[in-house]
């Protein structure tokens, strides 16, 4: 196992133990703060590499999506027009339309591509937001959502070339059976999207989708750290990104 993964597991294990331990001790006292003990993950530029060869090993696998949507209380809305999704599978035909041709191998043509917010370096959604409710955080490069400030104008949804954003057309709580208690829901009238699990990162945990993928298809790390997994993968594999010609500099790379 690599060093990073060992560190993840160590910190994750400790954090879980501390939190569950304290719950048993005294319910009405201040929650312990394992994250303060230097257990948070820090980076200057978070990025993700998705190995498509490892991804479609199991037919109809939805582990990354399920983990993400459960972790973040993403509602399951039956009406397709109103659906909310942070990470999901698109066909190659839709995700990489300009890369496809008549003789693209069948295995690639039909492989499902996990797509999510690309946390672009030059994000058009941030450029258009009138209140900076979505902004690129200086500390770690994550394109963040400030749900306290969003006015629901949906300009960011219009500006995103990847269709990564979803709007709450109705009250999401009516479409949730179980609510994960340690993370808020959103309310109707705001836009939401993947936040690279910034709350988990602070606790020293990898993003939920990365953790949930049992085939190791998703790798997450700091692009500015030359020893990170993502840098190693990018240097040894040919990767493509979605719609690179638009100049958005997406930070989700795909190994085809």
């Amino acid at each position, binding site marked *: 196992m690599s060093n990073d993964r060992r560190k993840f597991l160590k910190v994750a294990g400790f954090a879980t133990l501390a939190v569950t331990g304290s719950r048993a001790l*005294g*319910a*009405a*006292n*201040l*929650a312990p*703060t394992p*994250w*303060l003990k230097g257990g948070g993950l820090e980076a200057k530029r978070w990025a993700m590499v998705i190995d498509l060869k490892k991804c479609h090993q199991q037919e109809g696998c939805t582990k990354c999506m399920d983990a993400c949507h459960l972790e973040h*209380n993403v509602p399951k809305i039956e009406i397709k027009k109103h659906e909310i999704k942070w990470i999901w599978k698109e066909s190659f035909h839709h995700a990489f339309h300009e890369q496809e041709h008549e003789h693209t191998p069948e295995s690639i043509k039909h492989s499902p591509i996990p797509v999510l917010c690309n946390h672009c370096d030059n994000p058009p959604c941030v450029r258009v937001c009138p209140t900076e409710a979505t*902004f690129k*955080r200086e*500390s*770690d490069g994550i394109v*963040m959502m*400030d*749900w*306290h400030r969003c006015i629901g104008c949906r300009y960011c949804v219009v500006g995103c070339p990847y269709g990564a954003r979803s709007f709450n057309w109705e009250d999401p709580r009516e479409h949730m059976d179980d*609510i*994960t*208690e*340690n*993370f*808020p*829901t*959103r*309310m109707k009238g705001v836009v939401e999207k993947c936040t690279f699990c*910034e709350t988990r990162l*602070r606790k020293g945990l990898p993003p939920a989708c990365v953790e949930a993928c049992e085939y190791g298809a998703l790798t997450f790390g700091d692009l500015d750290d030359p020893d990170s997994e993502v840098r190693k993968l990018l240097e040894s594999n040919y990767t493509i990104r979605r719609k690179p010609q638009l100049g958005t500099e997406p930070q989700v790379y795909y190994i085809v």
Partner: protein
Amino acid sequence: MYDGGKIIAGLILFLILITFPIWWNIAGGTTDFEADPKIVTTEKSCIYEKEYMTTHHMDVLDDWRDRVVRDDVRAFHSDALGRDVEMSLSHTCMSCHPNKSEFCDECHNPMGVDPYCWDCHVEPKEGK
């Protein structure tokens, strides 16, 4: 003035109507209430002194939410407690005050305050 009687009568009627909520509640005796929020924690203090928290908890939360979400800062040093806490409504505040109906609502309900925090932040389960 022309139609003076009608105008003055109309003005008085308007004043009565516009101050309706005030005199109706005074007459009905619903303006007196003793708010007694129940504190169930054994911690010696809140993150600020009690008097300050009572009057300024909304400002504290407003400041926290910007610092956490926008500045990626989670640690807050509480002088009253003498240690660092996490700036979080659900994890910090509600861990000492999980009894929302006996604590938060004790004052909010008679005052007619309906903070929208709970539209998103998950309320702690009580008495379950």
